[in-house]
């Protein structure tokens, strides 16, 4: 049942020009950055050869690429999630889901999974770029996998937040703006007091990219993974409550 809803969501995305545009723009920009990174690496290669424990091609090309991709996700996820519930409410199609023998959590998880599948396709396309380097260079696949996992976790938290906010309004544009603002706030929350070097541990913990950086560099820590899972679970829970409320209030 979840899968039925998820596939329709994914289909809906690919039937709109928006999804294709986003894929094309992200892929084009990241390819450009990838070429620059590879060029830089070639220039550095001679000097690196003499160093002991020198950073490899994965550290110098894949990790920075993923970091840019993380920014890209921050910008485009709101555009993907904005229509999830707001449009269904506006056009009345939510009635179909509400009157069907399907629970509210199933609806929420189905929609979430649909967006997630799209984001996974996008991340896979990004990951293919450094993978092509394995033709001529020795890649650290462990680090690469950690980076992909990092991006996936980041994307899933973005999507969960966007999904919740799209259930709050009937206007997709409002949902997109709110999602973007919220994600950006979580992104820069650790900047408070950063200039004095006195970051509150709470704000540091809340910061979205702080947990991702380690993963993008290939360091897999359970507390980072837990952070993202908690972040997503919290917003999915809120979305379920919100939809319950829509049914109650009308």
């Amino acid at each position, binding site marked *: *049942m979840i899968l*039925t*809803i998820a596939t*329709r969501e994914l*289909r*809906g995305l690919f*039937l*709109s020009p928006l999804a294709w545009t986003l894929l094309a723009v992200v892929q084009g920009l990241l390819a450009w950055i990838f070429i620059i990174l590879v060029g830089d690496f070639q220039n550095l290669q001679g000097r690196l050869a003499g160093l002991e424990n020198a950073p490899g091609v994965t550290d110098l090309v894949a990790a920075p690429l993923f970091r840019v991709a993380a920014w890209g996700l921050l910008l485009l996820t709101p555009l993907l999630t904005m229509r999830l519930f707001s449009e269904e409410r506006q*056009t*009345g*199609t*939510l*009635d*179909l*889901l*509400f*009157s*069907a*023998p*399907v*629970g509210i959590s199933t609806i929420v998880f189905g929609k979430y999974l649909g967006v997630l599948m799209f984001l996974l396709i996008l991340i896979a396309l990004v990951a293919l770029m450094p993978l092509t380097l394995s033709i001529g260079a020795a890649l650290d696949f462990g680090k690469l996998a950690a980076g992909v996992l990092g991006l996936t976790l980041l994307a899933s938290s973005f999507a969960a937040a966007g999904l919740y906010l799209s259930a709050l309004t009937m206007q997709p544009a409002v949902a997109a703006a709110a999602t973007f603002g919220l994600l950006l706030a979580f992104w820069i929350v650790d900047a408070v007091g950063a200039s004095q070097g006195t970051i509150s541990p709470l704000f540091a913990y809340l910061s979205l990219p702080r947990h991702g950086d380690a993963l993008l560099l290939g360091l897999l820590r359970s507390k980072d993974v837990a952070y993202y899972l908690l972040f997503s679970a919290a917003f999915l829970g809120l979305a379920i409550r919100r939809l319950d409320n829509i*049914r*109650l209030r*009308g």
Partner: protein
Amino acid sequence: MLGENAMTGEILLQVEGLSRCYGESQVVDAASFTLSRGQVLGFLGPNGAGKSTTLRMLAGVLAPDAGRIIINGADLLDQPRRARQAIGYLPEQPPLYRELTVDEQLRYSARLHRLDRIASRMAVARAKERCGLMDAGRRLIGNLSKGYRQRVGIAQATLHDPPVLILDEPTVGLDPIQGREIRDLIRELGQNRGVILSTHLLAEVQATCTHVQIMQNGRLVYIGALADLSRQRQSSRLRIGLNAPPPLAELSQLPAVTQVEELGGGQFRLHHAVGVAPHQALIEHAQAGGWDLWEMTPESAGLEQICVELMLGQETVA
């Protein structure tokens, strides 16, 4: 699911004390009624009477403040899945995705109602045939006309063969021919199901429904068989045309006539008690008095009048 030897008369939908308010205003106030197999229940009332809200609650789209809804033996609150499986719901705005084709939309809906892949393909084919959508399967819903969308909506509501159909203004915005097709379809669907449809067209109720209930200000003011409704009539009317009319007083002294209205152009409306028609006396008097009678039409479109009377009666009580 619909049994082969479906008995008519079995109660499919039972509503008790259903209430709902939006903020301060009580939109639906303690509505109770039942719907049996074989019934097509016309749900009448002026705009804003609470019809749509009632139907939304029956479909499980809106939670009631109070009351119980039992659909095909399953309580909508306690066994939501079983109850929802037994209803097909067409809201005022058919819930269709513009970017899907008719086939995709129907298949999705069938899957949502827990039909497996093979069953849903068969159900889609059956629903399309029933609703005259055989050639429209590959068309985009966004490009369909209003009438076709309505048909897709009905096809969607009947896909999983639910015993109870809830249709909110199914013929609104359709041209007369489309409207008649949909009405024929509803009558056919109602033969072995229970159908409740809301409308504010009396003609539609007369053409399709076996039973009627009237809602006014959130309260049900009348529930009964369509045939019984005409017996609710307080008086009947006769429209007459005279070329040489006598004074009004003389007309109102005709036997059984209770009231006379002058319509202009030599036409009058005679109100008379139900069951005693004054036409015989009228003809005799017209002949004797040389009134030159040229028209005599019983105004038995009475259902409209009855509904208005019921609604107005409610208003004066309230």
